[in-house]
């Protein structure tokens, strides 16, 4: 079928191959655009690597997620270059020329089978890699030698009803999302809890049991990797283990729209050495106990006043 049949051009004021704009500026623009995209992808990662990959470094599972992400990113970049490359090449190279008719190719079965199998095998590779990393991301390891130990008297209640696969002590913290603040309940007596800022010992596996008391929230500290939704009526689980020597403050915020001040529902985790943690816990327990006693006394006195 010749392109530019007499019939079509004479009956309508449509396209005329002779009047085609095939000027170089347009071609340059397309080429330049492609070049910029490719260049930025090849060159920029080294310059701003952080902006192209997840945050990590706060916990082993975050590092694994980062690695898994990077693997898919590299495969993705190859596919991206392949698709954009052939697309731009076709658009630049195969412009209509006067009097030339395109070959009327309708398909190619081996080619169809080829790219179907090709796409499927990439996904098989991704599946295998994901399952290789899954165990390390999902299941908490044991606390390290420099972490909190079960034998430390004050934390006799560091319980392990569901111990990590290697056994050993863990610190279980109960996280509760409320509009618009996080509450953390630690095990043991006397009562120990805190709001907003969670203090944890380094080199210790921290298992979080995440719940919500009003609407759905989502617990997330980017440097610790996974987030976990806090859904009323459910207990969700997550874990992290800050390596020894990485003491410091890790920040995050609620990741599920939870109402007006969702954007202000921040969270902070302060990782300290086990010794500092014990000191903090002891002081905090005493403070909470004292405050509780004070409150009980005031209440008693208040009731007495009302009674008179």
């Amino acid at each position, binding site marked *: 079928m010749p392109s530019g049949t007499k019939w079509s051009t004479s*009956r309508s*004021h449509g396209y005329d191959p002779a009047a085609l704009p095939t000027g170089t500026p347009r071609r340059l623009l397309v080429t330049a655009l492609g070049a910029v995209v490719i260049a930025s992808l090849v060159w920029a990662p080294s310059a701003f690597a952080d902006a192209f990959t997840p945050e990590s470094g706060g916990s082993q599972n975050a590092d694994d997620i980062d690695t898994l*992400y990077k693997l898919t990113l590299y495969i993705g970049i190859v596919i991206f270059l392949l698709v954009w490359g052939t697309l731009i090449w076709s658009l630049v190279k*195969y412009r209509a020329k006067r009097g030339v008719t395109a070959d009327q190719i309708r398909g190619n079965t081996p080619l169809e089978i080829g790219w179907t199998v090709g796409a499927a095998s990439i996904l098989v590779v991704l*599946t295998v890699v994901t399952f290789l990393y899954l165990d390390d991301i999902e299941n908490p390891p044991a606390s390290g030698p420099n972490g909190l130990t079960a034998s430390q008297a004050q934390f006799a209640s560091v319980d392990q009803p569901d111990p990590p696969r290697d056994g050993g002590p863990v610190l279980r913290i109960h996280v509760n999302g409320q509009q618009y603040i996080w509450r953390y309940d630690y095990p043991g007596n006397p009562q120990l809890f805190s709001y907003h800022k969670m203090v944890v010992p380094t080199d210790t596996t921290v298992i979080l049991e995440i719940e919500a008391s009003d609407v*759905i929230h989502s617990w997330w500290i980017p440097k610790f990797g996974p987030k976990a939704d806090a859904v009323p009526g459910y*207990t969700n689980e997550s874990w992290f283990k800050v390596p020894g020597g990485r003491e410091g403050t890790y920040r995050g915020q609620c990741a599920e*729209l939870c109402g007006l001040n969702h954007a202000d529902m921040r969270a902070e985790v302060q990782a300290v050495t086990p010794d500092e943690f014990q000191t903090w816990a002891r002081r905090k327990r005493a403070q909470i106990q004292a405050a509780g006693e004070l409150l009980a006394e005031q209440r008693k006195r208040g009731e007495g006043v009302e009674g008179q």
Partner: protein
Amino acid sequence: MEAGSAAERRTAARPEIVLHGLRQPQRGWLRWLTTTDHKRIGILYLFATFLFFILGGVEALIMRLQLAHADNTLVSPETYNGLVTMHGTTMVFLFVVPVLAGFGNYMVPLLIGARDMAFPKLNALSFWLLLFGGIAFYASVFFEPPQAGWTMYPPLSDDAFTGGGGVDAWIFLIHLTGLSSIIGAINFIATIHNMRARGMSWGRMPLFVWTILVYSYLLVVALPSIAAGVTMLLTDRHFGTGFFDPAAGGDPLLWQHLFWFFGHPEVYIMVLPAFGMISEILPVFARKPIFGYKAIAASTVAIAFLGLLVWAHHMFTTPTPTVVLAFFMLASFTIAVPTGIKIFNWIATLWRGQIVMKTPLYFAAALPALFTIGGISGVMLAIFPVDWYLHDTYFVVAHFHFVLFGGSVFGIFAGLYYWFPKMSGRMMSEALGKLSFWLMFVGFLATFLVQHSAGLEGMPRRIYDYDEELGVEVFNLISTIGAFILGVGVLVTLVNVLWSLKNGRRAGNDPWQGNTLEWFTSSPPPPNNFDVVPRVRSVEPMKDIRREVAASAKPVETIAQPVAPRSL
């Protein structure tokens, strides 16, 4: 081709039923209000949905302004949450889904050689339900717009946490537009199954019609789930039930399952017809048949089927057993295969073509490019351990704008530039069209590429403000500037439409040398579409007709004359 036999059959032509004089045509605005003509209804759809598109776009721009720098106080948190909800709801329910119904309404009967849809009055009902759904929803602006996000997760959307009528207005919108879509879908299914031109077997049906058929089946399957969900939400809010309230024995995750069982097929509902449009456009402008017609049609069906099995990948961070997560990861992976097949086939269509660089081609060629990026980020998000990091961040926002704007909206704009001459009888300005394309393309990339980075740095979705320490201010500023470039690009197309309606060159029947039957009739088509419907002998009937005309050197009508219409 068969000029001799055609001439014989011409003499045996049967008379047609003629409608003249049966009913006085309506005049003025009443003509539009009472119309049952699929073309007028199609125009009404396009007009209304593009108005909603502008509203949704303005909402997006206000949000981008608010996020341009940290600690901004342009809008209050109430307003921002309202904007988030209105923008998402508008774009999904009042723009992308119904604008495709609009194109389907106008084009499907023309593409299959029918004189109208199967049920013209139901067709009108579909449009008016949509419009009133939109009005009911936007009326909430005058009291209290909904603020729980377009996903409306309870308990937040329950009356205990979000009072006022906004959520109820949203529920009415879902019911009204849902009814509209189901009725419209049944109409498409009946039309496409029964009213195709003689000779148009399934293997010769235009790919856009294939995608509209699949779109319709998906709507029928998916919509009842959200209809049930919003009804439960309504009774939870006002009649004391506790479907989603754990304190009353209900379950907030039930909502998420019902919502996403609809919500993920909805993604394919929004993108498949756009795929169909560019499957029509690319071969026309490459002057080459579509590469792998059967593979593209089959992959459409495959995507639709698999699309029903992936909904819980929106729920990877909820308390859900790992084996379930693994199933939904693998199902989501599987979808990448038929999608990849489509992209490769489109590129193969352009490969070794004789490409005519007109505006519809620009938009059509941008779709596979942008969708590829959204597809790659989609595979990343399907890996559930990675999603545990990325879920509900700006990475996800970037991802779904790449598939829904880069995919659907670029496809819709390609369709608009491609079919505008048929609808109006006039060509659109090429200069304005290309200007609009480059503004939209560059603006789009500037807006959404950097949002991946914002998400990776730890910026969650749906926040009205962020900490300067998060290190995302520069990404947000770039994104805001990009959004305004994108907005100007859209505006240029709207100006182009208005300008071309009056001043465009006359298009004639077939300005692009199209392949399909809509180019056989005049532009705009007469009320009955075709006086005679040609027999279809291939997937490119207009190419056959042009070839016959060239061979016989007779006017086109005489060739078409012989075949009596199959339907009226």
